[in-house]
């Protein structure tokens, strides 16, 4: 008979962002128990992680275990002892030959265990193995650890409870409803579980909660914000959006500030009018079903008003001291203990911006870029660093390239984010990131594994994107003094072109092997190789290049001298040479179809390893020259060919 299974881990509110990962981990741990089953479904709310499976056997299948006994030569007494232990007569034992000789053995039949028992035994350990980025003790030091205290456990197999205890909580058939709209104890069966929760104001399915929010939002023009939506889906058991409004006079504060307050501090969606401009409204998502008296709406409106008033106060206070006048204050702001203050960083970034080809605007922007760290607004809304500086610079009359560069210089902050919009901003962003990378690597603050406290991967990725997408013509190698940093950046270059831009890994390897210091050039070569790949001549030619490389390596051939035309044998060798002479200096795309048959024919007919040393040397020189000529775009021997 096959049985359904339900596990609900009831906990105090789990941080929203950890829930999807926890479900994955729960699933993985469940599969490790190796109980056969048909389907698995995972669900969660902030207060419960739920696994439901169908088609579990009542009992695990019977198994057999071969038990090796004494050697065949052992005294009869030992053999009888072994047989007795297995509960059979000595003549029922089999004899098995092993590499060590012949041994008595017995095939023991192991009866499959009750699934319920196996679950009861595995579930406590399984639950505690669910991975969370941070966990806690709650029953005391040395007790179980979980993300938040476990308060109830539902474990049902068919109609029966799977009995176990964890952290003083006994499993049973009792779940819990919404904290205030439902009952704290609700008896459930596998069949009515989801409905019972719904009756007690818990929508179990994240998809359904997401849908509910989306549908009820449809009437309002909210700024789309997928990440915020996910947060709210996992922060509520019964989400209901409500719309509130704020005094339109706050709209004269910068939109960036208003949106940040709503988005990051209050978890509100902001609302646009028909023209796409910020409207004096917001949408909050409640964890209850309705707000008939308007308590929640008015409460949220008051909180937002206070927040906006704070922001206005900071905005006005900050104006009393210009950005430029704040530069000396950066001497009091630590960049990193070993790397000194932001004032020192500013001086370095200014110099680097100039070195990178930045004009006076770039240097000015680099000078002011970090000054907003001393403003009240940034102290309050750290995520607005840069943006606030840019806004102040604009108000204080800095030229457009300067304020925009300050505004943008932390960009790109993620793979989805854009790079700074103008050349000045790109130079400043690049200088800032390169300085951070160089400094951190110099004092040994290098990311290890998943630990990257200074976000150096993001900085390096930013460098790559700014240079490539900003088409900055510069040689990165000049700014990467450190070998470790060079390797670190090479990894980001590889990642960018492979995973973000979709080039094949061998194309990336091939092109990078021919140099990657000039990223714009690297990109151009990658596109060429990608296009070349469509040619039927490409892979065979790449295979030939690999062969040439191997031959040269085996012959320990170094240095390409001049080819002695007189030593060339008539036929394929001379043909190849003439072909080379006629196409040298031309792009490989236009000559590949002519070159390939000559190379093929050469390898078909000509023995490179000629008995005459001079002829051999001359042949190697011909091949070496050919390889060099066409290896400036990529090292084709890195191309993985199918043939």
């Amino acid at each position, binding site marked *: 008979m096959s049985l359904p299974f339900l596990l609900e881990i009831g906990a*105090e*509110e789990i*941080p*929203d*962002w950890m829930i999807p990962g926890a479900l994955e981990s729960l699933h993985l741990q469940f599969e490790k128990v190796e109980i056969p089953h048909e389907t698995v479904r995972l669900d969660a709310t*902030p207060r419960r992680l739920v696994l439901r499976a169908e088609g579990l056997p009542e009992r695990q299948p019977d198994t057999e275990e071969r038990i090796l006994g004494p050697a065949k030569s052992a005294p009869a007494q030992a053999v009888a002892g072994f047989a007795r232990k297995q509960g059979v007569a000595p003549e029922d034992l089999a004899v098995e030959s092993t590499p060590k000789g012949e041994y008595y053995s017995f095939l023991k039949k192991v009866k499959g265990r009750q699934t319920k028992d196996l679950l009861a035994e595995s579930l406590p350990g399984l639950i505690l193995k669910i991975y969370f980025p*941070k966990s*806690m*003790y*709650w*029953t*005391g*030091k040395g007790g179980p650890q979980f993300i*938040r*205290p476990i*308060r109830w456990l539902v474990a049902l197999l068919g109609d029966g409870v799977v009995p176990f205890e964890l952290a*003083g909580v006994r499993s049973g058939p009792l779940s819990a409803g919404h*904290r*205030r*709209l439902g009952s*704290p104890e609700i008896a459930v069966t596998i069949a009515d579980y989801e409905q019972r929760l719904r009756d007690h104001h818990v929508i179990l399915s994240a998809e359904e909660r997401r849908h509910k929010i989306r549908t009820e939002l449809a009437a309002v023009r909210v700024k789309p914000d997928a990440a915020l939506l996910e947060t709210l889906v996992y*922060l*509520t058991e019964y989400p209901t959006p409500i719309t509130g409004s704020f005094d339109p006079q706050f709209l004269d504060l910068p939109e960036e500030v208003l949106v940040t307050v709503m988005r990051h501090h*209050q*978890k*509100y969606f902001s609302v646009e009018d028909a023209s796409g401009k910020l409207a004096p409204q917001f949408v*909050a998502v*409640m*964890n*209850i079903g309705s*707000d*008939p*008296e308007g*308590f*929640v709406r*008015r*409460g*949220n409106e*008051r*909180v*937002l*008003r*206070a927040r906006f*008033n*704070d922001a206005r*106060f900071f905005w006005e206070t900050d104006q009393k001291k210009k950005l430029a006048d704040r530069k000396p204050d950066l*001497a*009091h*702001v*630590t960049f990193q*203990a070993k790397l000194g*203050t932001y004032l020192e960083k500013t001086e370095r970034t200014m110099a680097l911006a100039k070195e990178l080809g930045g004009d006076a605007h770039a240097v000015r922007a680099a000078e002011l870029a970090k000054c907003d760290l001393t403003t009240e607004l940034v102290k309050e809304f750290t995520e607005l660093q840069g943006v606030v500086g840019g806004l102040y610079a604009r108000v204080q009359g800095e030229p457009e390239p300067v304020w925009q560069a300050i505004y943008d210089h932390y960009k790109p902050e993620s793979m989805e984010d854009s790079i700074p919009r103008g050349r000045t901003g790109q130079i400043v962003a690049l200088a800032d990131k390169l300085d951070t990378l160089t400094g951190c690597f110099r004092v040994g603050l290098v990311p290890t594994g998943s630990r990257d406290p200074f976000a150096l991967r993001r900085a390096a990725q930013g460098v790559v994107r700014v240079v490539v997408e900003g088409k900055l013509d510069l040689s990165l190698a000049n700014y990467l003094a450190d070998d470790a940093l060079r390797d670190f950046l090479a990894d980001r270059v590889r990642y960018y072109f492979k995973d973000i831009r979709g080039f094949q890994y061998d194309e990336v390897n091939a092109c990078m092997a021919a140099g990657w210091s000039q990223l714009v050039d690297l990109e151009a070569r990658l596109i060429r190789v990608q296009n070349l790949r469509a040619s039927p001549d490409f892979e065979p030619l790449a295979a030939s290049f690999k062969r040439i490389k191997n031959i040269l390596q085996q012959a320990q051939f170094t240095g390409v001298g001049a080819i002695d035309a007189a030593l060339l044998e008539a036929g394929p060798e001379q043909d190849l040479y003439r072909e080379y002479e006629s196409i040298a200096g031309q792009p490989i795309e236009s000559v590949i179809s002519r070159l390939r048959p000559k190379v093929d024919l050469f390898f078909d007919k000509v023995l490179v390893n000629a008995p005459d040393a001079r002829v051999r040397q001359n042949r190697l020189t011909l091949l070496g020259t050919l390889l060099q000529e066409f290896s400036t775009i990529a090292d084709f021997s890195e191309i993985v060919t199918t043939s």
Partner: protein
Amino acid sequence: MQSFQEIILKLKHYWAERGCIIQEPYDIEVGAGTMCPETFLRVLGPKPYRVAYVQPSRRPADGRYGDNPNRLYKHSQLQVILKPSPPDIIEQYLGSLEAIGIDLRQHDLKFEEDNWEAPTLGAWGVGWQVMLDGLEITQFTYFQQCGGIDLELVPAELTYGLERLTAFLQVRDTVYDIEWAKGFSYGDVRYLDELQYSVYNFEMADIPTLWKLFELHEAEALRLLGLYNPKASDKKRFPLLPAYDQVLKCSNLFNTLDSRGAISVTERVGVIQRVRRMAVSVAQAWVDQQREVATAEVAG
């Protein structure tokens, strides 16, 4: 409408009924209720304890001369410690909100992850900020470590922001307008504190004097800690509580110097370390001392 003091009285009463000792505020300046010995020292060791008290919490850098509607140099926290935390702690907490008249079926309540860390105390915990209709009304923390020591029993710490909570319940846009008691606004009672301490902390505090005071208190704390002998008989006489007072003095002086802009970057990390070292030493000695006290109690 409930006044500020009525709300406080109701909450104290509520927690008293749930087995809390009701303490009065500690009589030395602190930045948060957590720093009072009733929390910092009592959470250490194996002895269960429950306590609640209102603690005026001083944060020199947050002063705004009484101009800002929500930001205060000195605000009032209701600090509740339940050690160990009972399994129905959240239910008990929600009950306290209902006790002051909040109908939670008509309001939006969310527990948003917020972990807490106090580097100067070598303390951290995990928990939430509790949001009521978008307003943070309580910080809820399960302590994991204090004074650098793993806690044997995990206490729950509830910190209610009393001014905010009252402004919410009284529907006021500025804390100065909340009614403290009939006929008296918060502003009537506290405005001058805000104004004068802002002037002092930002403008008039004498930096060399504050440094001198810091060093005197630090020296006294270190002198005492240096004399503590874990092998001594009758350890319980040893004045660790007074030593801890010296640490609190240092902490407040550090905050004042900081708001006065008197601590350079390089000094800052160092001074935090100095305070932390003293706090950790007190905590360690305290745990050791409590062991003897516990043995004595069993014997007696």
